[in-house]
């Protein structure tokens, strides 16, 4: 098995899927010779040529709109948004079309499209290179929204996304593109969409999170264990919608306490749904409030991003709140 970082794992997934299935094409700004600004598509143009690795004009609306037409016709496009913060020009095409074409056509047409791009903060990217927009997509019926937290999942989830019959928004936390290295099997494997994963077992409190926050949450869990002996179960949701509600509920049956950690702003954020789902369907399990640790309700700042994003202190505060309730 090779040890890879997430960029390499994603690159491998694309390469393998493009070899396996001639319908898979990649398109976006700078995905060709440049290999993408983070090099996720590096080298693909050499192997698959300009017809399947397509440098596009600078319009996200065009990239997604055209990719939708490609998918309807029979290709399996993977559209790169250079930074996911720029996806909003394509929002109409995503919400009004990618998400709705199957429904609109009574199931006659589908849009097997992956829209992928780097998301989230932690690299001093400022307000337009740091966003976590998963709540917008989670609220859009017809989409599947995914965010891996490491190389192994990244490869397996991207393969599932490419093979899915429905549009998938694939968010890649850029702050961990290169710093987490893992063994990644060279053979073909997939990680199923819709399944979360317990990344640390625990019995006192369930911490639900995803993306780069998984690693921070694990650190906070360790700290809580060391300092107070609290046993924190950390769930990496992986698929943000439809999320693995059973895994969360099973965990809560044991822990009876819930903390949700995400980078996106708090209000109307992705954590709200997880909280509301539990408050609607399993409130009897809870013995304390559901705490959220999130980005603040502001644009993502360049200055002091470590204070803006969830950090260990803030996660610790939330754990303390639910444990000492």
């Amino acid at each position, binding site marked *: 098995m090779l040890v890879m970082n997430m960029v390499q794992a994603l690159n491998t997934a694309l390469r393998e899927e493009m070899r396996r299935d001639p*319908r898979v*094409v990649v398109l976006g700004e700078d995905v060709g010779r440049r290999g993408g600004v983070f090099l996720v598509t590096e080298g693909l143009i050499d192997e698959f040529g300009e*017809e*399947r690795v*397509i440098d*596009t*004009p600078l*319009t996200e*609306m*065009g990239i*997604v*709109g*055209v*990719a*939708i*037409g*490609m*998918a*309807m*016709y*029979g*290709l399996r*496009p993977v559209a790169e948004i250079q930074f996911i913060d720029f996806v909003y*020009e394509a929002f*109409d*095409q995503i919400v*009004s*079309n990618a998400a*709705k074409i*199957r*429904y*609109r*056509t*009574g*199931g*006659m*047409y*589908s849009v097997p499209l992956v829209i992928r791009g780097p998301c989230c903060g932690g690299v001093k990217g400022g307000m337009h290179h740091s966003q976590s927009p998963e709540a917008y997509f989670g609220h859009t*019926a*017809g989409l*599947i929204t995914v965010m891996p937290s490491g190389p192994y999942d990244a490869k397996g989830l991207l393969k599932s996304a490419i093979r*899915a*019959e*429905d549009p998938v928004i694939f968010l890649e936390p850029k702050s961990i593109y290169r710093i987490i290295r893992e063994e990644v099997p060279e053979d073909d494997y997939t990680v199923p969409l*819709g399944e979360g994963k317990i990344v640390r077992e625990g019995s006192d409190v369930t911490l639900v999170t995803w993306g780069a926050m998984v690693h921070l949450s694990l650190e906070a869990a360790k700290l809580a264990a060391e300092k107070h002996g609290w046993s924190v179960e950390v769930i990496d949701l992986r698929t943000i919608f*439809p999320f693995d*509600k059973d895994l969360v509920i099973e965990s809560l049956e044991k822990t009876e306490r819930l903390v949700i950690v995400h980078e996106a702003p708090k209000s109307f954020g992705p954590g709200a749904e997880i909280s509301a789902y539990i408050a609607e369907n399993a409130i009897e399990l809870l013995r304390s409030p559901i705490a959220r640790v999130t980005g603040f309700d502001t644009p993502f700042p360049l200055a002091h991003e470590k204070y803006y994003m969830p950090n260990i202190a803030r996660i610790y505060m939330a754990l303390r709140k639910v444990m000492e309730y």
Partner: protein
Amino acid sequence: MSGLGIDRALGFYRVIDEEGRVVGEEPDIPSATLIDMYTYMVRARILDEWLLKLQRMGKVAIHAPNRGQEAAAVGASMALRREDWLFPSYRELGALLVRGMSEEEILDRALYNADDPLKGSDFAIYGHRKYNTIPAPVPVGNQIPHAVGAAMAAKIMGHDTVVMTFFGDGATSRGDFHAGLNFAGVFKAPVVFVIQNNMWAISVPLSRQTKAPTLAIKGVAYGVPGIRVDGNDVVAVYRVAVEAVNRARSGEGPTLIEARTYRLGPHTTADDPSRYRSEEEVKKYEKYEPIRRFRRYLIDRGLLDEEKDKELWEKWGEHTRKAIERSLEKPPLPVEVILEDVYSEPPWNLREQLRELRESIRVMKELGLEVE
């Protein structure tokens, strides 16, 4: 300068004038094709009028009248092969018929009865996979990049499919138009864009939509040849479309056709055009109305006479009435369709919501509440 194709983009190509007289050379189109064109236009007109009536009767949610624009829809779409793909807008009944949809199929859709292939998803949109005709998105212009993407895909897959898309003058202002035309130019996509320039976007006149001298000239901004044509002259539209389809099929790339026409009716059945345009203007354009003028041409050429014409209208009138009867008799869609076709497989949230829906129907009955 001619490399930019500016002359044709600023011109106004016509073959038959508003009196039915040939302008320039006689069209070398087989008589049967000419009669087909006429028949499609007649069928479209009959159906259009019925949809208006059905809307007034409360059977159809809304209808966007086609009156006056039949030539553009029929002429352009007749240039396609069956395997080609069409992305229409919401004002091309004629094109749907050309593609092979029957009146009944269109009516099942308009009435969203149990046979509606779109399962009641939206109003005023039509199409079917078996005719490679894609039901339009209601947001104006959304289908333009889809058409380009489909054309690019066909090219990548080595098919010789040509893709055509229709949209209105208003749609040229949308980002989708800009993105679609630009991609088509850059990637030489086998796609034909047909603007139905009917002079109005609801109440917004063309002069408020753009200061460009024509819409066809917009192709210059994308390296896409533009051709302006009399959209009420079915033969002119057909010829220009054949040329564009051939160009596309032979790998020469996209064409932007501006079919200059006029919407004689209201924007939709919900509109009141007297608020924004004069009766005189409409009267003026009535004289360019495409069916009458083409009929005159066909009669002058001896391909049609008053008698045959009357029979044609009667035949398709009867055909349409019967289709309506059948469509109206069909049962409504089952309620549960509203939860279908969101994903290839319903995830847990939709399964939960299906239970909620079923339970709500039971509770409605229990409470004695009106069920639709």
